């Protein structure tokens, strides 16, 4: 048996499985479609259950012996011998050949050369083009050459060709010749002995639930968007502001906004209750009133303290799933029947925040179709031997669950390739 593994998706699960496999001596190619690694974690700021950075990961042992929990920028991901990181890269096809897989990859240009860029940021300073930064709710501007996330790995900027005018100012200012505006797509094929899907999830767009006024009212957000506002490196330096820039005084959260719903997403997204509580606590610290409308509070054992803290900090809990959100004088009003008092409530607030379902990324790509169930999730081991999955690509989950699953899949892959299975 050979020892080459392709891991698709460099979220926390993909990184974890890659580091473990590389430490065990296997050859790993980590393929990420975005310009930087981290997946969801790169957007989250602080996370439960430890109330510290989402960007934290177990770095490889080759470079850091002993305790090696490190920030992504300190992990030197991809510089160790056994691990190659391919960003802006997608899997085009997976062909089964004997007991190997022939995986074809396509890399789109970054226009900034990773082996040349020293991350001086001068190109960003000289770029004249300014466009809304989609990652930060469009509330701040970014340049055409930009860093999607300041501490995102690789640290080098990327050029957004849709807005770039090819004025070449950045090329001129970059004395190390790290910019190539004519860079082309590259394809390559790798023969692998195993493929691990770690393609993760994303928040589904709430516009499929028209009742909640998302898209009609700018002050109806998703939890991920609220998370950006509350991140101290985010668009408002951690302050909860309305779309018009006013300090928020009250927030209503709607849990299961599309999850556990036969008309939308049938399953429970598992992490949303707890991250909603996390955000509620952060809002209370800013003096914001918070009401949470919920069906069941599903808080894993390791994070019960978040529920206690939310209760202690006087978050109001309403048991009931809101029917709809109406917009009155520009502000969202949540209509909900409290199933305990059986009263119909109309809750006015500055912001309404929806816990949108977490839906699988893999479902968007045809190449993975044959490995997915009806929801678009993959099994930990596929019926086809040699195809594995971990993290949220196997079902919505939180970070501890995703990381633990990544470790166990690493062991399975190792045993399958190196004996023991």
């Amino acid at each position: 048996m050979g020892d080459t593994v392709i891991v698709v998706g460099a979220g926390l699960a993909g990184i974890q499985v890659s580091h473990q496999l590389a430490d065990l001596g296997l050859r790993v190619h980590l393929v990420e479609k975005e310009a930087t690694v981290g997946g969801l974690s790169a957007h989250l700021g602080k996370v439960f259950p430890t109330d510290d950075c989402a960007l934290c990961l177990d770095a490889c042992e080759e470079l850091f012996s002993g305790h090696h929990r490190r920030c992504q920028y300190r992990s030197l991901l991809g510089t160790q011998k056994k691990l190659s990181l391919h960003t802006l890269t997608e899997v085009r096809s997976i062909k089964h050949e004997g007991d190997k897989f022939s995986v074809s990859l396509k890399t789109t240009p970054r226009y900034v050369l990773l082996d040349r860029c020293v991350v001086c940021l001068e190109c960003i300073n000289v770029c004249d083009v300014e466009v809304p930064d989609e990652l930060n709710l469009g509330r701040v501007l970014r340049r055409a050459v930009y860093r999607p996330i300041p501490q995102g790995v690789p640290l080098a900027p990327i050029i957004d060709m849709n807005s770039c005018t090819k004025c070449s100012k950045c090329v001129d200012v970059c004395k190390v010749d790290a910019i190539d505006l004519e860079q082309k797509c590259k394809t390559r094929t790798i023969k692998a002995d195993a493929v691990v899907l770690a393609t993760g999830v994303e928040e589904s767009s709430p516009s499929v639930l028209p009742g909640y006024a998302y898209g009609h009212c700018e002050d109806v957000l998703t939890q991920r968007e609220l998370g950006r506002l509350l991140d101290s490196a985010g668009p408002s330096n951690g302050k909860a502001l309305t779309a018009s820039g006013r300090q928020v005084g009250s927030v209503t959260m709607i849990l299961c906004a599309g999850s556990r719903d036969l008309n939308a997403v049938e399953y429970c997204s598992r992490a949303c209750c707890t991250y909603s509580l996390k955000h509620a606590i952060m809002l209370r610290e800013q003096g914001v009133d918070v009401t949470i409308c919920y069906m069941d509070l599903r808080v894993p054992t390791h994070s019960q303290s978040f529920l206690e803290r939310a209760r202690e900090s006087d978050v109001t809990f309403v048991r009931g799933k809101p029917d709809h959100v109406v917009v009155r004088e520009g502000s969202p009003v949540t209509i909900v029947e409290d199933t305990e008092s059986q009263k119909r409530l109309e809750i006015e607030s500055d912001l309404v925040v929806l816990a949108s379902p977490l839906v699988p990324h893999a479902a968007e790509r045809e190449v993975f179709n044959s490995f997915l169930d009806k929801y678009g999730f993959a099994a930990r081991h596929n019926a086809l031997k040699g195809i594995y999955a971990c993290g949220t690509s196997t079902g919505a989950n939180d970070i501890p669950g995703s990381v633990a699953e990544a470790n166990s899949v690493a062991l399975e892959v190792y045993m399958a390739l190196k004996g023991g299975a």
Partner: protein
Amino acid sequence: MKKLFLCTCNGTLNKLLDFTRIGKEAKAIYDVVEVADNLCLEEGLAELEKGLSGDDRLVIGACSSQIIGVPMKQRIKNDLVAFVPLREQVGWVHLEEGESATNKAIVLLSDAAVQLDYMESQAEFTENMVGRVLVIGGGIAGLKAASDLHRLGVEVTLLEPFKLDKHHYLQTSVFMSDADTLRSEIQEIQKTILDVERIRGEIREVRGQLGSYEVTINGAKDGSMTQEFGAIIIASGNQQSLPSSAKKMRYGKSERVVTLDSLISNSKKKRAKDRSTILVAVDFDAPMSSVEGSHLLRTTRDLAARGNTIIVVYSDIQTEDENLYREARDSGVIFIRGRVTRIKENDKGLSCRIENTLESMQRDVIADRVAIPRLIGPTIETTQIAEKLGVECDDSGFIRTRYSKMKPVQTSRRGIFVAGGAKMPMSLSDAMASAQNAVLEAFKIVRSPLVRSGWIPVIDDEECDVCKACLDACPNDALRLMDDRIVHIPAHCEFCGICVSACPTRAIEFQSHSKESWFARFEAIAATHKRLEGKKPFSLVFACSECANASIDQAGFVGKQYGTGSYVIQFPCAGMVSPIEILKGLVVGANRVIVAHCPPGGCHHQTGDHLSELVVSLTRDMLREIGQNPDRVRATYMMAAMPDKMQKEVPVRG
């Protein structure tokens, strides 16, 4: 020779910082000063390599050591190197203050020069690991762990409880999955461990540390035996017990009040007559885990399918499988939110009063039976095992893991892991995954020798009172008592320096970070600051090399500006800081000393966050007592997710 290599970072840093002045100042303290434009690129590294000879001591003034450190060390052989992060911690955070920023750079470079004077080479230490792993079984995860280790070719001993009958694993795991899956899984694994050494008994004593735990076991048959293990996996499972509310539900007083599990047990006697009304009273105050929830749903679904009327009175239903919830409802289970407050027995059955949480609404339900779901808790054995092994438990008696987000099986002691239900209630698939996690960690330990390199603490036997404070404080079992002396075992050391601050007589000094070195560095900083900035106040920030330093780097990455009179000094861990360094900082003239550590519970060395808070509060007390302002000393946590922390601690003006 002492050499300084500065980098302009593609010709950008020299726009803000006056490199000519920096170079001139540096020439007074360094033998050689070189300036490059791209030290981290191939051509820069090659240039650097050319300019060095083997015994040079070197300061790199460039980007964060976190970024340039490893590539640099892979390239050059010199091991006496200090880094000054001129980019992240000067250039990018003092954009408006070119002159002061230049001064700050000079101060930091003078500090680095002194640092080199005290720097020693790092030695490498190796220790062989015992190849055998002990799995303390009793739960299904233990079977899985033993099986996987065996298949990996690792020698393994599976220790099982004295009382272990044929049905043990099935009975203790009923709540984990549906019975058929569970049964077949157990049968499968049992087949794979036929060759594994299995003994019945209990742990009497454990000595040693990671790589060579010496375990004495009281066996059932052959008395006691002692054996060495490289790693230990605790997989002693959990147990079900009645909630404290059971009594109030008349459990034990009325025959009609039973446990939920007894209703599905196969014994005819206990089994409820079909078509009866069963009220399931979930303990309102105990948080339900999703395993307990799923088990509740499976059971009530099956009971309802047999034609019973099932009413579940509950607070929140947890489950990892939404379909179970639907199936239960579809088969007729009625869910009522609230708590059962009173049960009265009459000839018709049990009259149960249900109150919803708002207390305003009540209703009475007549039931033939009241069923109480049992709760999952740790076994007494688990708590005892933890005590013998010296690992921490949480408040309810489950084994505590080191860092809940990312270290799923690591206990508070290195080389000891927890798998399955001994950590918390787990579903079958989670328990299996957790066993695999533990196997992976144990495997990585026993398969190769432990190799560490770093600066180590050195113990002065003359000064040492053998009070054992350091030994208790060391999070890694790297200090031991041998022949009435404290002995340091470097291969186990994580180089945190916690032992240094723990020692009441300062009999321990860290290589390269001795008291003298700190004093000399602070004095250099203060003197240079005074020369360049006159009376302008300054702060010293004692930052741990992990989260706190990362937060300060991140301030640079996102451009959070802060005041220039702020000198960051990296400590391996904030737990190394003692009142001596803090007071010295004040004595040399710092206006404030800030000790920055990892977020609560997030210390990479387990206890440094907590210890540094203690040290600071002690120092503040001392200051108060001598009539000084205690607010000149502060402890705080910092992390990469809070790049604004430096800004809050060191405002731009002030």
